[in-house]
């Protein structure tokens, strides 16, 4: 059962502006029955009043949230100029409805695309921008241009999110590496924030001891024990940690490497960068 908001339910059960406009100035059409949803949007402009959208109607084949999204869109655009309407994003449609389940975000994207398609139709373009590009998802016929756009506009970072927003990758899954490639490409271009290393916080000795013990129990001993070895914590003096190897580690010629690569590295990662680990024989 989908967790639809009351507003989604309301717009599904009592959809506003269902129908056709016979003498529409713009008609937008997106989706296909094979994909499970389709939307036709009609706009009537008021030419005397700065080409504001005087009326909008829709027809939808689709699930509850597809019908609700389309109906919400018609209410949102009425009274706006085309330039104003153009600024509506799919997130605006979802927000208008009090949110949509993540798997249903593509319904809001479909609304946004129908609007673009209608505006393009009015301006005499052949196709909406999203229809250009190379098909990446063959199951749902989604292009790289469209994927790149939903990734950017909704700040998507995973293939699953892309599928939720535009269906790409929801069928045979063979395009998943390509979608991941597009996501990587989009975010690579963005300037990565420079990581400022956090200043080591002043740590009490008690807290330091606790963290050292926890890290040894959680991250170090289980690793050593897998190879039949073990380790004891002997003492902590300032930032020097004294340990003693047991079991197979005690005889192991490589224990010096283990000491630095595993024990010290883990302790520096989880406690503080300043720690030095020394081995004692006890």
């Amino acid at each position: 059962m989908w967790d639809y908001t009351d507003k989604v339910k309301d717009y599904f059960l009592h959809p506003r502006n269902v129908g056709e406009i016979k003498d529409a100035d713009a008609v937008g059409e997106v989706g296909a029955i094979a994909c499970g949803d389709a939307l036709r949007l009609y706009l009537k402009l008021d030419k005397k009043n700065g080409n504001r959208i005087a009326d909008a109607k829709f027809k939808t084949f689709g699930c509850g949230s597809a019908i609700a999204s389309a109906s919400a869109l018609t209410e949102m655009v009425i009274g706006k100029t085309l330039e104003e309407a153009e600024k509506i994003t799919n997130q605006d449609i979802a927000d208008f409805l009090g949110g949509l389940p993540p798997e249903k975000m593509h319904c809001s994207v479909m609304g946004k695309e129908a609007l673009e398609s209608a505006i393009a139709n009015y301006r005499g373009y052949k196709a909406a921008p999203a229809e250009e590009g190379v098909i990446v998802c063959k199951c749902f016929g989604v292009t790289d241009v469209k994927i790149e756009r939903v990734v950017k506009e909704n700040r998507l970072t995973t293939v699953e999110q892309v599928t939720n927003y535009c269906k790409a990758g929801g069928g045979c899954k063979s395009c998943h590496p390509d979608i991941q490639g597009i996501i990587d490409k989009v975010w690579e271009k963005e300037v990565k924030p420079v990581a400022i290393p956090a200043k080591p916080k002043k740590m009490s000795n008690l807290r330091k001891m606790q963290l050292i013990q926890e890290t040894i129990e959680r991250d170090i001993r289980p690793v050593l024990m897998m190879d039949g070895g073990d380790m004891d914590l002997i003492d902590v003096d300032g930032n020097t940690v004294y340990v003693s190897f047991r079991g197979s580690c005690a005889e192991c010629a490589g224990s010096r490497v283990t000491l630095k690569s595993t024990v010290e590295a883990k302790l520096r990662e989880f406690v503080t960068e300043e720690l030095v680990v020394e081995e004692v024989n006890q």
Partner: protein
Amino acid sequence: MKRLVYVDNNATTRVAPEVLEAMLPYFTELYGNPSSMHTFGGQLYKKINQAREQVANLIGASPQEIIFTSGGTESDNAAIRGTLEANPDKKHIITTRVEHPAVLNLCQYLAQNGYEVTELGVDSQGLLDLDELHGAIRDDTVLITIMYANNETGVLFPVEEIGQIAREKGITFHCDAVQAVGKLPLDVGKSTMDMISLSGHKLHAPKGVGALYIRKGVRFKPFMLGGHHENNRRAGTENVPSIIGLGMACELARKHLPEEQTKVRKLRDKLENLILYQMLNSRLNGHKILRLPNTTNISFEYVEGEAILLLLNEVGICASSGSACTSGSLEPSHVLRAMGVPFTAAHGSIRFSLSRYNTEEEVDYIVEHIPPIIRRLKEISPYSAEIEELELKAAARK
């Protein structure tokens, strides 16, 4: 209170009042552990074996051939993994494209982990081609796992013939009979099935309990390891109340079995015939005859299934759909796709699955509510012209 008409019995069923009543003492005064040495716990061991007999009686098995599990999925996993582990030299499995996910996803997992899996296809009515099965068998085929009745369409597979083929080749045959047990008479004593999965909550027992039938002499290694429960074949302290409930449910199912073929079938046929007759854009999915008596899967072309379900829900009718939107996946049901049901119809499929608790009055209620719902969605749909064309053609055929 809003009216409730529950016709989603292939998803789950109500617990029969007699089942609940039988279970209650095992939550309160009889809470012991059947493995205990004291009488207080140990006496329950007998009760569990009585339940085992009740289950065995329903399917014609001997009680020693029944192990209790946590449900259909565990039974399927135990049967499949247990067979593979007992026959480690053979690496080929045969199944079908329309299995329940409990079998299908497990087989797909095994296919990525050292096994080869052949998935047999079905025709447009959901039927198997036994020649294809013959052709798929190899020297290293270890297991054939094929369902008895499909959960979405109710279509039945020729399990005896499949078992015969398996037996001739010395291959173990596991049958996921979760939807069939309690709806169809079964007699494993005379059958060629080596293993059968069954689930409690599909036959008026509670959720979380099931059973696996393993024919005596069939090689099997336990899937759940631990204590000595279930004769060393399924570890874990017995779910006593639910096992008692499953036993009672099986006894009741045996008693009511004739009703499934008469009362339930009659109601299902009435529902199906009236919908197909009234709604000119509707079509039946699955073979009309070779089918469970309680299930009907109907597509309303050019109308979307989730929207239908939500509107049915508004009038208290609980059904399910093979539409993409209801599953969270974006593609319609794998069963309907395997059957080659066109997209125009697959997205608008609705499954009604009845039980002995449904009434004729409820069927009338559904039949009354379907036309306005479909009409309403048709009016919203951009494909209303296509629907009308379809309806004209259908009317001309009548």
